[in-house]
């Protein structure tokens, strides 16, 4: 069962990561191309702490806090730059994070951090923890979407200027989106670090940010269920496709392209076309 357990654990960690990005990009419409940097902050923080004998959950929480703090700083940047500029700025954040981590010996430098302590839950126990976190994050996302916060996020996502004109505190809510999204990314990172028990800069390379964004967009930007399904599939796709061997990445790239080209609403959009249902939330966009 160890193989299936490790796959499911990775799946869960990826889902948490993409749901966290979904809060920022899907709900609030702020495209982030550097999200994995916050996963990394959570991972490095938690690892350094547990290696210094900090209790696991405390370390995890610290990772989330630090990631969220840096997230707010990036959120502040989002108040200054918009849309495509913001996307590229967040990409820059990813590279700067990597650049810093690669140089600092106390962060492991190029060699990364090894022998991260086992939290001691056993494989199945750890999987249960991850699944528990997935459920919590999914419920949190659902709750946000239904709440006033979710309404403001959607308004900002639709048309920021109009939202501001309506008297909504756009700046504050953008920062909240970043804070929440990046903190949850930190959670994903802390869990990842204690599952693989070895992290190094390449684990958080720019290509991983793209993977997270792809999961969100293929799921259907904003759709919680869609993102969960897309993450689950995409995270273990390379393992399933082992038999394709040489053509694996080719298939992955083509898949991204084909989905965006023919079903830009992602899986959620596809589902909507097959099973049309009434809109659940109040939207500030034009009539559909």
């Amino acid at each position, binding site marked *: 069962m160890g193989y299936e357990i490790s796959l499911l654990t990775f799946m869960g960690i990826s889902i948490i990561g993409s749901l966290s990005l979904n809060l920022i990009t899907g709900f609030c419409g702020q495209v982030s191309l550097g999200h994995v940097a916050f996963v990394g902050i959570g991972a490095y923080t938690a690892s350094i702490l547990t290696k210094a004998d900090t209790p696991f959950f405390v370390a995890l929480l610290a990772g989330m806090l630090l990631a969220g703090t840096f997230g707010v700083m990036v959120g502040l940047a989002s108040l200054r730059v918009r849309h495509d500029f913001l996307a590229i700025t967040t990409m820059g954040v990813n590279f700067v994070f990597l650049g810093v981590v690669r140089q600092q010996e106390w962060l492991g430098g190029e060699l990364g951090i090894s*022998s991260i302590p086992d939290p001691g839950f056993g494989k199945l126990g750890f999987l249960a923890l991850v699944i528990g976190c997935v459920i919590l994050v999914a419920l949190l996302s659902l709750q946000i979407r239904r709440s006033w916060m979710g309404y403001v996020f959607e308004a900002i996502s639709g048309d920021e200027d109009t939202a501001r004109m309506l008297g909504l505190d756009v700046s504050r809510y953008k920062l909240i989106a970043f804070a929440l999204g990046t903190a949850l990314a930190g959670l994903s990172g802390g869990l990842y670090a204690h*599952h693989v028990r070895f992290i190094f800069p390449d684990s958080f390379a720019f290509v991983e940010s793209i993977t997270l964004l792809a999961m969100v967009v293929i799921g259907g930007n904003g759709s919680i269920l869609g993102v969960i399904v897309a993450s689950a599939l995409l995270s273990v796709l390379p393992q399933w496709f082992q038999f394709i061997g040489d053509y694996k990445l080719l298939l992955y790239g083509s898949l991204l392209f084909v989905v965006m080209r023919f079903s830009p609403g992602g899986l959620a959009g596809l589902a909507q076309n097959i099973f049309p249902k009434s809109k659940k939330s109040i939207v500030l966009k034009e009539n559909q």
Partner: protein
Amino acid sequence: MKLKKVLSLIPALFMFFGIAWADTIKIGFNVPLTGFAAADGESALNGAKLAVNQANASGGINGKQIELVVYDDQASPKEAVPIANRLIEKDGVKVAVSGSYSGSTRAAAGVFQAAGIPYISAYAIHPDITRSGNYVFRTSFMGEVQGRAGALLIGQTMQHKRVVVITLKNDFGKSLATGFKAEAANFGIEIINEYEYSIRDRQFGPIVAKVRADNPDAIYASGYFFTAGPLVNQLRSGGVTVPVIGQEGYDGEHFIKIGGAAAEGVIITTSLDRDSDKPETVSFIAEYEKFTGNKVDMVAASTHTAIKVVVDALRKAGTDDPDSIRQAISQTQLTAATGQISFNRIGEVRKNVQVQIVRNGEWRYHSTIKDKNILAPPES
């Protein structure tokens, strides 16, 4: 009725194939076949396949044929961990080899160690790989060891004292530089400056200009063929004529192809001596070329060696009990293409460093480094 008949055959088929499968011995193998490391992955896979073919041709393991179970890990720890689990559980391997880079090997090593399955790192250099535990071994040099050898080579053998270090910013380059710097002073080397570059860099104009201004006696540059080739080219075009000393990352024909005339005279520390008259080395070089149509390189040679070590241990152990296999590996005394292989307490290899030089577009013998102190891997 007919369906029932067909269905009843199925268990028989399973039994048949089950018996047939039980006649092969499986060696697990993770290697990057797609992604940025695909070139080295291809070499590693070829080296491994050749070793398996040769072993099978000479009777396999006590009569049973060897099967290489290959998975593509894209040189990513995230992929390597499930692959390790899959090899252990689904494929039931009792021993495995990594043909991949440090990140994925390190992650997988943890899994193999916890499961008590012996695991050999063919060429990944991260020091903590063998520190995963007593089930993990490494058949290639640690970065630091090779770096120290480089200091001996430049300071003592070649008698160059003013050196500029150009370091590849990854675990390989950094650990080489660490080893070099640790021993440099002992051989009278003054490191004038150190410059770092990223694995994706191919244009070194600024570094070349600065190095020329530094005016060193020699350059110690870490990298792989796809960085070292352009670097050496640009150094020569930039008017820098002093010797360039590299490491096994250069080892292969592609460096010479890319570097062209600039590759002449470049010296590297490595494990493969093309001019060797030892039968293992000679036969490996000849057979590899026949098998793949390519010339040999260090990655292929290291992986070939790792598989040979496994085969040798399997034959000696005579059982597929992982503990016995582990024991046999730890007691290895084997001559392979890359030298005399034996392991120390933590599974690090002890062997001489071969120094090769490019002459007339080919890698040729330059010297050998045998200093036991310099080459001693850590004991813990």
